[in-house]
């Protein structure tokens, strides 16, 4: 899916977004101000490629933050033109996420009664539920970014349905997932403001241990970090309510597990929900959060997410294209990787390292 970007092609932003208000809003993430702190990975100066002869600067400019404002703007316009293409492509395919959610949730919800009735073996229920729990987050993540329908649009009902159903197996209300995830986009890799920052770890085994540590009931719990962000940093009534509801849903979930165990179905509920929730959360925290943002030391637009070969492939759920998602959150997950391939000539000039793509 790689494609050469025509050199120096000046694409007007408004024209590039085709008048779509959502795209206009989204694509103003980075208007490339002159002092934009973009990351540059190349130490030496390198000429800016693909510019028509007349537009090549007299003094060779480097990559990343060494690009001048004109070049950055031109690159951004080219980036946006490609993003627009994938956005339109994605909008025609979002019904698949809705269908997957409805079917996936129905299968997930049926696992517990089917294991109690001994129709489905426990090991099969555990594997299916683990995969569906992570999958639920993947589809709900699209809903978090309103990719199935913005407020007031025809698809809004389906968007919200996907969000609520997808998050349910994790015992996490959709609302808090939405608020914390949007904060993560806003403050990626910021130690104090990024809700996902506690995932930081130097190696994969350390990341797995950190995941376990973050889920312990005491002082190491990630809950304290989330509470501080929701209640103190954001502090809106909506954020406080979302945090309270998250706590109540967690307590309700634990009491459901206790009730099922007391009724004699401890193994069944453990295999269908309790353990899959642990493995699903681990898969999300380590494979989908720690891995793309490791080593968590760069907060810039082009540097806060890396390009890599996922450890969890083929269960990586397209996370290899996560940089594309952070650049353009309204492009669905399955299209981010081909979009990044097409953006390669542009993003390399921005300093993005494609070595492991």
């Amino acid at each position, binding site marked *: 899916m790689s494609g050469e970007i025509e050199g120096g092609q000046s694409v007007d932003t408004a024209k590039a977004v085709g008048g779509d208000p959502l795209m206009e809003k989204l694509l103003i993430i980075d208007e490339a101000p002159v002092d934009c702190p973009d990351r540059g990975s190349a130490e030496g100066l390198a000429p800016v490629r693909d510019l028509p002869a007349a537009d090549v600067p007299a003094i060779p400019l480097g990559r990343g933050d060494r690009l001048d404002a004109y070049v950055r703007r031109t690159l951004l316009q080219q980036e946006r033109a490609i993003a627009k293409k994938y956005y339109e492509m994605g909008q025609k395919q979002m019904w698949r996420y809705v269908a997957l959610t409805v079917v996936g949730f129905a299968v997930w919800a049926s696992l517990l009664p089917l294991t109690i009735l001994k129709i489905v073996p426990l090991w099969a229920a555990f594997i299916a539920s683990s995969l569906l729990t992570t999958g639920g987050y993947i589809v709900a993540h699209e809903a978090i970014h309103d990719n199935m329908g913005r407020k007031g649009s025809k698809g809004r009902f389906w968007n919200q349905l996907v969000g609520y159903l997808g998050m349910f197996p994790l015992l996490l209300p959709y609302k808090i997932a939405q608020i914390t995830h949007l904060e993560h986009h806003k403050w990626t890799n910021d130690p104090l403001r990024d809700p996902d920052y506690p995932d930081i770890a130097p190696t994969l085994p350390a990341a797995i241990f950190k995941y376990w*540590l973050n889920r312990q009931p*005491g002082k190491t719990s990630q809950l304290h970090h989330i509470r501080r962000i929701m209640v103190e940093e954001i502090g809106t009534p909506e954020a406080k309510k979302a945090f309270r509801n998250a*706590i109540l849903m967690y*307590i309700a979930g634990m009491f459901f597990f206790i009730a099922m165990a007391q009724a004699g179905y401890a193994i069944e509920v453990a295999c269908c929900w309790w353990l899959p929730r642990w493995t699903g959360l681990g898969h999300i925290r380590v494979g989908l959060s720690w891995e793309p943002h490791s080593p968590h030391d760069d907060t810039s637009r082009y540097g806060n997410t890396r390009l890599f070969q996922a450890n969890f492939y083929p269960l990586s759920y397209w996370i290899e294209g996560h940089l594309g998602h952070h650049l353009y959150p309204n492009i669905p997950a399955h299209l981010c990787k081909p979009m990044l391939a097409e953006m390669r000539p542009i993003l390399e000039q921005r300093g993005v390292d494609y070595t492991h793509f």
Partner: protein
Amino acid sequence: MESAIKQLIYWLPFLFGIGFIAPLIAQIMQVWHIAAPFGLSHATFGVLIGAPWGLYAVWRGRWL
């Protein structure tokens, strides 16, 4: 209300140990035909493991 929820969250590992871990241990022993030591019933043995484990999690803030 808020302090009640805080207390509930604080003691939740103990409640979970006694309410979920204990019957889970008992059921696993039953399914795998493992006899409880000292002539104890599966349920009693489960509580003897689950309750202290939950208390440990409350005390230390970690399950392990």
